[in-house]
C-alpha cells in the first residue's frame, strides 16, 4: 500500500500527516491508517490525499498492528523526513511562524549573502570583460 500525506482534508488537525492507504472503498474514498503518525484508521477522500513515492508491503485491509510493523520496518518516517518534499514543507511552516524580529534578521542575512554573491559575480564579469578586450 502507498503512503501518502494528507493535504487539505476536512479534518484540519490531521493536515500534513503521513498515512498509509490500507484499502480502497470506492471510486472516491480510501481506508487510511497512520499508526506511526497519530492518525486513527478512517475513510478519507482521495482528493484529501497527496501520494508520496513510499510504499509499505501490507495486505489489503491489514489491521493497525500489521501496518505499524511494516511501517517501522520500512523506516518510512525517517525516509520521509529526509526527502526534499518534507524539508520544503518544514521550512514553509517555519517561515510562517517567524516573528517580526526574525524576519528582520532573515532580511539582513539575505542581504549579507547576496553581497558576497554579487562581489564574486562582479569579479567574474570584470574578468570576462577584460578577456574580451
Amino acid at each position, binding site marked *: 500500500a502507498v503512503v501518502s500525506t494528507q493535504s487539505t482534508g476536512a479534518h484540519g488537525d490531521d493536515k500534513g500527516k503521513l498515512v498509509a492507504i490500507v484499502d480502497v472503498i470506492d471510486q472516491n474514498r480510501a481506508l487510511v491508517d497512520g499508526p506511526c503518525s497519530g492518525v486513527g484508521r478512517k475513510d478519507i477522500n482521495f482528493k484529501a490525499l497527496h501520494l508520496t513515492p513510499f510504499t509499505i508491503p501490507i495486505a489489503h485491509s491489514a489491521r493497525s498492528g500489521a501496518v505499524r510493523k511494516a511501517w517501522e520496518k520500512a523506516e518510512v518516517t525517517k525516509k520521509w523526513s529526509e526527502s526534499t518534499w518534507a524539508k520544503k514543507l518544514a521550512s514553509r511552516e517555519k517561515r*510562517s*511562524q*517567524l*516573528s*517580526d*524580529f526574525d524576519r*528582520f*534578521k532573515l532580511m539582513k542575512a539575505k542581504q549579507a549573502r547576496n553581497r558576497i554573491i554579487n562581489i564574486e559575480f562582479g569579479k567574474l564579469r570584470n574578468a570576462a570583460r577584460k578577456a574580451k578586450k
Partner: protein
Amino acid sequence: KTKQVHGSSGINAEYGGEKNGSTREVPLQKQPRFYPTVDNKKPLNNRRTPKPTKLRSSISPGSVVILLAGVHRGKRVVVLKQLPSGLLLVSGPYKINGVPLRRVDQAYVIATSTKIDLPALPEIGDAIFKRKGKPTKNEKEMFIDNTPEEPKISPEKVALQKEVDALVVPVVKKTPMLQSYLKSRFTLTKGQYPHEMKF
C-alpha cells in the same frame, strides 16, 4: 432668659410689651429667605474611580511594539509602562530611532513578541505631558507679543529622556541586531498580509 423648649428646635424667648404676648417660640435655625419653587431631584453620588484601560496580554513593560500612526509610524519602539491614564509610555530609545518619551494608545500599536528586560526606571507620570496654557492678556497688551522665547522641549523632559536612555540603551545593545532592528521601520511588501503574519 431663654429656655429651649423640650422636644423642639426652638427657644422660648420672652418678649416685653403689653400686647406682644409674654413668650413666643423662636427657632434656633432661621428659615432661609429664599427657596426654589420647584423641588429639583439631586443626582445620586458617583463614587466610581475609573481603572486604567486593560492592557493587551501581548503588551508588557519591555516589549517592542510597532507604532501605526503619527509622525513615527512604522517605527519599532520599546514600551516602558502603562500610565495611570491608560496610555502606554513609550521610548525609542531616542538615541536609537528618534522617538522620545511619548504616550501612545495601545490601539495604535502592533505588539511584537520581542521583549527586553527593563531595569528600574525613574517615576514618570502623565503630569510631564500636560500642555502648558498660554497666559491670558488684558486689553492693553492684546496686540503686543510679550511671550518670552521658550525652548520647544522643556529641559526637564530632555534630562529625563537622557536618564531613561542611559538605562535602556545598554539593555538593547545586549541582544545582537536588536539596535539595528529598532532603527529600521516596519513596512509591508508584496505578498505580506498582516492578518497572516506573526509578530
